[in-house]
């Protein structure tokens, strides 16, 4: 047999060995960096990323939370107010544009903003974090005060983290026409009211996502040169698409763009790597069934599979098979995952607002 570049390829490079016959899917060839149990790992991103913090704690690793709940909160209350769900009280950050905006606002690079949204009950919703304060703030002053504390926490987070896991969720977004401010939720869903004169739909292109992520990497590296960025793509499909396409086609488009952009960043930057959560959970070839009956919610088994892959690839001290560290009962990570793990998704407000047809 003649010589061939395929000769001697490792087993993971072959479909049969890497996918069909593997006991468990670990689609990472070589991790760019290693973590240990002291590595400060931060999370941010879409709904799916909410699973990561508790899973890190259960696996005995350091989940870095820079904006903890004040002591007056009980754990279940803290969760309702988005404390501890991510490393700061971002709310869900679905898009690369929103991610970039969070960082740029925190470090004063951007002043993108949107006037507060008023509720029918006279409360005030922060349009940049519409889901973090149930019922809304009592007034604009307190909303801005709380946002100021949050942005200070984001600065502290970026300056002190070791690894930031950012999970990209969507390419579809809404923005202010006047200055392009990214809105995490469409006006009229969680709060505010939709006005086509003020707001526009945007479906981020590959180039735009890459550009957003490049700005984010630059900013993070400037303030924390040792920081690593671990990108992933949420396997959770869109709950609805405004693109005009079928929601399945729109989902495929979004995930494809995000996956390709993440790969571009991974190839360009030594400090950026990729966690294949999408490939593990959403691939159609393996027989695992990681989605719940709604075909969106990820079952605990799916989260566990992603985390096993994460630990196997990146951790120099992965949890033992029998290790299931019981988290501090005061932590949201204490929530057991025997049942479907509940996540707080702004996207779900669409379904709540428009019923079963959504």
């Amino acid at each position: 047999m003649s010589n061939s570049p395929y000769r001697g390829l490792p087993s993971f490079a072959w479909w049969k060995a890497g996918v069909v016959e593997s006991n468990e899917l670990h689609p990472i060839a070589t991790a760019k960096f290693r973590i240990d149990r002291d590595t400060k790992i931060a999370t941010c991103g879409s709904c799916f990323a909410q699973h990561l913090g508790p899973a890190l704690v259960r696996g005995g690793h350091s989940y870095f939370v820079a904006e903890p709940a004040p002591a007056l909160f009980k754990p279940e209350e803290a969760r309702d107010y988005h404390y501890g769900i991510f490393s700061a009280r971002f709310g869900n950050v679905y898009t690369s544009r929103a991610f970039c905006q969070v960082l740029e606002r925190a470090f004063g690079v951007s002043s993108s903003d949107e006037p507060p949204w008023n509720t029918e009950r006279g409360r005030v919703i922060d349009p940049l974090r519409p889901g973090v304060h149930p019922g809304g703030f009592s007034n604009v002053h307190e909303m801005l005060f709380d946002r100021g504390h949050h942005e200070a926490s984001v600065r502290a987070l970026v300056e002190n983290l070791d690894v930031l896991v950012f999970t990209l969720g969507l390419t579809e977004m809404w923005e202010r026409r006047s200055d392009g401010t990214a809105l995490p939720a469409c006006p009229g869903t969680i709060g505010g009211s939709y006005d086509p004169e003020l707001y526009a739909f945007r479906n981020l292109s590959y180039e735009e996502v890459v550009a957003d992520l490049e700005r984010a990497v630059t900013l993070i590296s400037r303030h924390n040169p040792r920081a690593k960025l671990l990108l992933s793509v949420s396997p959770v499909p869109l709950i609805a698409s405004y693109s005009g396409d079928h929601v399945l086609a729109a989902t495929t488009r979004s995930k494809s763009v995000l996956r390709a952009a993440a790969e571009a960043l991974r190839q360009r930057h030594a400090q950026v790597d990729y966690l294949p959560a999408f490939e593990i959970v959403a691939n159609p070839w393996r027989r695992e069934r990681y989605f719940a009956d709604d075909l969106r919610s990820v079952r605990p088994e799916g989260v566990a599979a992603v985390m096993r892959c994460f630990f196997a690839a990146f951790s120099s001290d992965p949890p033992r098979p029998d290790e299931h560290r019981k988290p501090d009962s005061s932590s949201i990570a204490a929530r057991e995952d025997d049942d479907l793990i509940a996540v707080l998704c702004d996207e779900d407000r669409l379904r709540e607002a428009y019923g079963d047809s959504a």
Partner: protein
Amino acid sequence: MTQAPTRIALLGDSNVLAITSFWSDFVRDHEVSGVALATKYFRDVREESRDFTFVRHDGRTELHPWVRDDLAEVGIELAASANRDGPWLVLQLGAILCYERLILNFGDTDFTIDHPFSGNNHLVARLVPREIVERRVSEELEPTFRGLELLAGAFPGKLAVFPAPPPDRDNARLEATIAQVTGARLPAPPPSVRLKVQWLYHQLLREGCARRGLLFHDTWQATASSDGFIDPRFAFDGFHANARYGGNVLMAFCDRYLGAGSRFPYSGPWNELGETAELELARAIFGATPRPAPLLAPDRADDAYRQIDELKALVRLKDEIIQRLAGERELPPQA
């Protein structure tokens, strides 16, 4: 014709001292008994407890039949009234409980709540929704209400609850008082935080009393400025109200419920009133208090004595207060 004396017993925290600090004649006329520094122990009254020791202001002790108590739980300083048959038992609740258990314990990172006194937030404060603070305050009030229900069921006379005075806006004054009591320089939470929490505590105490059919003699609005903090005329050391405050709220109470206002206003110098009452009080509570060791489990005794020491420190502070009261010679405002 000699009018039958009105018997009033007062329980409460150290702010009750403000009320009693000018009571000398009133006590004599109405057989008013002594005072206990009791709020934080009162909340621990248990239904299954047994006897209750009262320390009379003349130093004698007796077991009181209408309130049962486990001394190990309640603390020996709870009881102060000698008037077991007295028609009124007045409790002032809120200041110490609210400050020590809520503002300090939960507020060490600083926080603020929204309505009704929004704004004026401290730079390092955290925003905590009113709903969350309200839950914590309600949890703190639960044992207090259990104790009140126990008292209301056991006491043959009338029961009334006073709120604590509104907080003082002056943090420096409060911190100086804390330093004198504790010997440590501790930062006080922002005034807006203290005001909001104490106001919330006040509201929930009032509502809880109403639901239980307990008389709540609301003195807050009458003693607060328009900004919600204590009227400067009633402020004293940052934590306690002054004797003028005590005169104001007591006269209002007597006028409304006892018809005693016409007999009340004391025309003598305030410093004499305060000094006499304070010294009597100190002697009553600490001079002749029996050692509780036989009634306390060994591991509880140390804690009880530590608490007594803390209270004694407070009384030492009161000595200084008395000196400062000497400078106050204004008559109390008419109720």
